[in-house]
């Protein structure tokens, strides 16, 4: 990208969660649910010496995209690494449940989930995990009616239980900044050893778990530049595609069959991983 192009584009990843939601929804259509001034915040963080944020780091915004009802759920990656606690998790799950209910009542409502998150908030451990399970079942419920689009474009990446949420989405959008994986690099290094995964080696991390690699492995549907207009255009296109004939997560049998053939004795390479996943999806 030339410096001129770089200056002209409007970065999506540099926006905070609220601004990202505003940028996706039609002008003047955004209405925030349980916003900061409702002060539904984490009851657990203050007793652990962490300042709670008034919206618990999750922005839920109702509105329209291209005139169609949609709910945008944006996780604030700058607050506690976008971690999912009891309150923020319940906001996400309930917003998705309400969208599904709207669909059952004859109002076709889609959902856009901005996945800027390290996964569960360790300070709220089991409550956060339970909330993430609620999010998973809510996505599976809603995606029967209207697309649930995940956007993982940001510096935090998308990890842990929320990477499963990403896998359950009807469509997933990523950029070259994205990192997407179940376990974070430091966790893999700790559990499997530095010979297996060196968490200080940034190019290595992106080669294995970066947005481009995930796109070429068919785990991501749209690979976009970090540009608000391009991302909005991609969202609009994917929404007009409707519900996919078969969701990626419905192919788990094929993926498992491929994984069973993998020789763990060989050092994995990004190319080998692409081959494995592609085969899983072609089957």
């Amino acid at each position: 990208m030339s410096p001129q192009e770089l200056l002209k584009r409007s970065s999506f990843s540099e926006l905070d969660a609220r601004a990202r939601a505003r940028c996706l929804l039609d002008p003047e259509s955004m209405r925030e649910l349980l916003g900061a001034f409702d002060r539904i915040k984490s009851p657990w963080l203050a007793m652990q010496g962490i300042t709670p944020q008034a919206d618990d780091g999750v922005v839920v915004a109702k509105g329209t995209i291209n005139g169609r009802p949609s709910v945008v759920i944006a996780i604030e990656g700058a607050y506690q690494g976008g971690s999912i606690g009891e309150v923020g998790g319940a906001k996400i799950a309930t917003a998705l449940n309400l969208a599904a209910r709207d669909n059952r009542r004859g109002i076709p409502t889609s959902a856009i989930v901005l996945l800027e998150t390290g996964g569960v908030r360790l300070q709220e451990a089991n409550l956060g995990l339970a909330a993430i399970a609620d999010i998973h079942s809510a996505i599976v419920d809603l995606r029967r009616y209207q697309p649930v689009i995940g956007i993982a474009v940001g510096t935090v990446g998308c990890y842990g239980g929320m990477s499963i949420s990403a896998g359950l989405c009807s469509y997933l959008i990523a950029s070259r900044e994205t990192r997407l994986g179940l376990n974070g690099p430091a966790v893999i290094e700790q559990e499997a050893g530095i010979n297996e995964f060196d968490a200080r080696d940034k190019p290595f991390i992106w080669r294995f778990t970066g947005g481009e690699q995930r796109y070429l492995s068919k785990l991501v549907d749209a690979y976009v530049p970090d540009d608000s207009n391009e991302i909005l255009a991609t969202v609009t296109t994917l929404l007009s595609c409707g519900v996919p004939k078969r969701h990626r997560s419905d192919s788990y049998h094929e993926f498992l069959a491929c994984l069973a053939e993998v020789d763990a004795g060989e050092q994995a390479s990004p190319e080998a991983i692409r081959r494995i996943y592609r085969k899983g999806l072609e089957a």
Partner: protein
Amino acid sequence: MEQMSYRFPAADPAAQHALAGIVSSGDLEVLLEPNTAGTTTIVVNTSVKGRNHIWNALLSRIFTANALPAARVEINDCGATPGVVRMRIEQAFEEAKSQ
């Protein structure tokens, strides 16, 4: 966690509520709502202990220099420097002006 409360004289009520900033490292969140004319109240929640004298000095400098609109202000701080605190407060008051 430490909590501090302040009260300052103020002008007419702020026109609308406003939100500025995020509780991320070196930053803070300012929630501003209109208050009855004449008084601004501030609650500071901060994860950094033992900096009361700095908050006292900074907030009294900001809120006594000019009569700002009357507001209920909540500050959720994650170790912001005084310069960042001032900018976020000014940003909130700017956004609270009627369009």
